[in-house]
């Protein structure tokens, strides 16, 4: 892709650059394309080096999925409404590929542009086409948008790669065109004041060990507040289930940061907000629990042996009804004055956290808190045996989450290799504990749903029997997770991992 130095590229400039060795021929008439780029909210396509572009013109409505290594898939489709899931597109290779990339996330428009496209053929002495040139005049809508930028795409014809190399050299050296430094998507995004990958659900901060601890904790909490609020519109509109998930994770991280590092903030901050963020976490729980059920529903239904998927259908309908009821309550809460007031006051308080004259540095605070959190996992975990009650594993799961969040908050202070390995072993333990608790919670809820459904005369007995089989599946998974615990914990508590944590928490005060 080449672009004119003055932001424009014309046929005459190109023709002059290629003469006398090659000539140019116009290929059809120029046409106007409306382009919309789609991606998930967390940029899954961009991260995987894919772009999905919807091109419309008179008689054309095509979706083009292209990868960084030149793979291209297209499908024609009209009247697809976005945001929506990949499944809204017609069946075929593009949809299959897209579904794998987008996972359970919806696709939403991230940038728009209008382009005038003209195709030219580069001909040799035999009037044979040896390369295709596509001149695109990109115009991005919106106030303050940059002037149209001309882009020239050189496409080699098979067997004429050497000549294409010559064409590119001639265009850059003689015609004065310069290689484009960003894609059309990046240009369109920049004009809209955005950049690809501008949202991530992860904590992404550059802290320094010497900075005041209060400033470091404030920066962490401000970024979590950004993440939390970025996910509110998608949660209210129910664009996909992961908006609520990311919102919940941001709330949990905020609560953990307040609990574990809140004493670094001005006096009273921790106490003022702990209760309010607990409320926020609690109001999101019912919908997320139902989402987990519904996301795993197809797999559960496929795993039925005695019952059929059709017999389980009333359970699915019940889950959907429950979710609508709970979602209405959640939306009311997220639109409430209480929530708006909480976020406004929270940001105001974080903004007024002046750095104290004296106090610990970020490195010192991080080392101390991670050391303490690590001991709180290692000690109770080593006392858990085959006869330990489920509550001991649930408590350990909470301590693991706290340790994980601390590692994420202060990741920029650590050696990346040691940090990565420490997180990997911790994640292995968390996955096992998470599976164990999820199965227990789902079993408990399944019994509750069964009691609710029993009062509905329209629900046939076969549905309750099928749910019994689901309970059996959950029981089996729970047993497997419980039996895996000892091995996972042994990995986490290994001497090598202890050394890693010693390195991460060097200089910590007990």
């Amino acid at each position, binding site marked *: 892709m080449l672009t004119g130095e003055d932001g424009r590229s014309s046929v005459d400039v190109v023709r002059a650059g290629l003469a006398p060795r090659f000539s140019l021929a116009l290929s059809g008439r120029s046409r106007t394309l409306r382009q919309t780029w789609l991606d998930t909210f967390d940029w899954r396509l961009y991260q995987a080096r894919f772009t999905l572009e919807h091109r419309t013109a008179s008689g054309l409505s095509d979706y083009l999925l292209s990868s960084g290594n030149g793979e291209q898939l297209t499908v024609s489709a009209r009247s697809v409404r976005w945001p929506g899931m990949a499944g809204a597109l017609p069946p075929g290779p593009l949809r299959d590929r897209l579904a794998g990339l987008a996972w359970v996330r919806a696709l939403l428009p991230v940038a728009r542009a209008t382009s005038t496209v003209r195709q030219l*053929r580069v001909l040799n002495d*035999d*009037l*044979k*086409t040896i390369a295709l040139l596509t001149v695109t005049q990109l115009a991005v809508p919106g106030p303050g948008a940059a002037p149209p930028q001309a882009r020239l795409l050189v496409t080699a*014809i*098979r*067997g*004429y790669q050497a000549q294409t190399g010559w064409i590119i050299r001639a265009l850059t050296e003689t015609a004065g065109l310069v290689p484009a430094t960003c894609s059309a998507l990046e240009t369109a995004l920049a004009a809209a004041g955005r950049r690809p990958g501008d949202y991530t659900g992860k904590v992404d901060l550059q802290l320094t060990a010497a900075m005041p601890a209060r400033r470091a904790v404030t920066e962490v909490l401000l970024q979590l507040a950004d993440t939390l609020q970025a996910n509110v519109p998608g949660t209210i509109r129910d664009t996909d289930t992961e908006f609520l998930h990311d919102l919940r994770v941001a709330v949990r991280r905020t609560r953990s940061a307040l609990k574990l590092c809140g004493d670094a903030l001005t006096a009273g901050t921790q106490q003022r907000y702990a209760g309010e963020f607990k409320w926020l976490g609690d109001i999101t729980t019912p919908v997320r629990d139902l989402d987990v059920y519904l996301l795993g529903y197809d797999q559960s239904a496929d795993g039925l042996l005695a019952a059929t998927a059709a017999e389980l259908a009333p359970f699915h309908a019940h889950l959907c009804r429950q979710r609508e009821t709970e979602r209405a309550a959640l939306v009311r809460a997220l639109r409430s004055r209480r929530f708006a007031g909480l976020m406004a006051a929270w940001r105001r308080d974080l903004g007024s956290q002046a750095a104290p004259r004296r106090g610990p540095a970020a490195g010192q605070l991080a080392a101390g808190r991670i050391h303490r959190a690590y001991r709180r996992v290692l000690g109770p975990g080593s006392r858990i045996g085959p006869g330990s009650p489920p509550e001991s594993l649930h408590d350990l799961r909470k301590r693991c989450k706290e340790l994980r969040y601390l590692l994420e908050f202060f990741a920029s202070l650590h050696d990346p290799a040691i940090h990565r390995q420490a997180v990997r072993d911790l994640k292995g333990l968390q996955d096992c504990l998470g599976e164990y608790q999820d199965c227990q919670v789902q079993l408990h809820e399944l019994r509750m749903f069964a009691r609710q459904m029993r009062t509905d005369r329209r629900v046939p007995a076969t549905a309750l029997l099928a749910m019994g089989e689901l309970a059996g599946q959950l029981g089996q998974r729970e047993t497997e997770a419980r039996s895996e615990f000892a091995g996972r914990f042994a990995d986490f508590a290994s001497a090598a991992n202890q050394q890693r944590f010693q390195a991460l928490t060097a200089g910590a005060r007990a």
Partner: protein
Amino acid sequence: MKILASYNIKGGVGKTATAVNIAHLAARDGRRVLLWDLDPQAAASFLLRVRPRVKGGGAALIKGSRDLDAAIKGTDFERLDLLPADFTYRNLDLILDATKKPTQRLARLLRPLAAEYDLVVLDCPPGISLLSESVRLTSCRNSSPASMGTGRRCWRSAP
């Protein structure tokens, strides 16, 4: 990948016109097509404006010292590629005869292209030879323009 050969013992009956048009229509309908101009007269290559030259000549292709893939040229038509003719193809019989299992040679050379093309069209030179025997065994269908006594042309297809 299907392989179709346009073949007749006689010259001037429309083999090349048949091969080029079938290849073009198939590409226009969305198939990925390779047209192999096996005739040293190179009429198909000229029609598609590709110079009839293969680096190393027919011997390099048939003996496998040069990949077929590297000799393929894109045409002016989307999805239609050409393996051009070369003047050395006049000796293809001799070259084939010098290889092991000469009648299976073309099929073996085309096998690596199976994932890349839906259809391969062979434009054959006239005559009965080792090459024509190899073409007969390689192609799943022969489209054979035949000259009729009335001067009208008809088509005969043999599996």
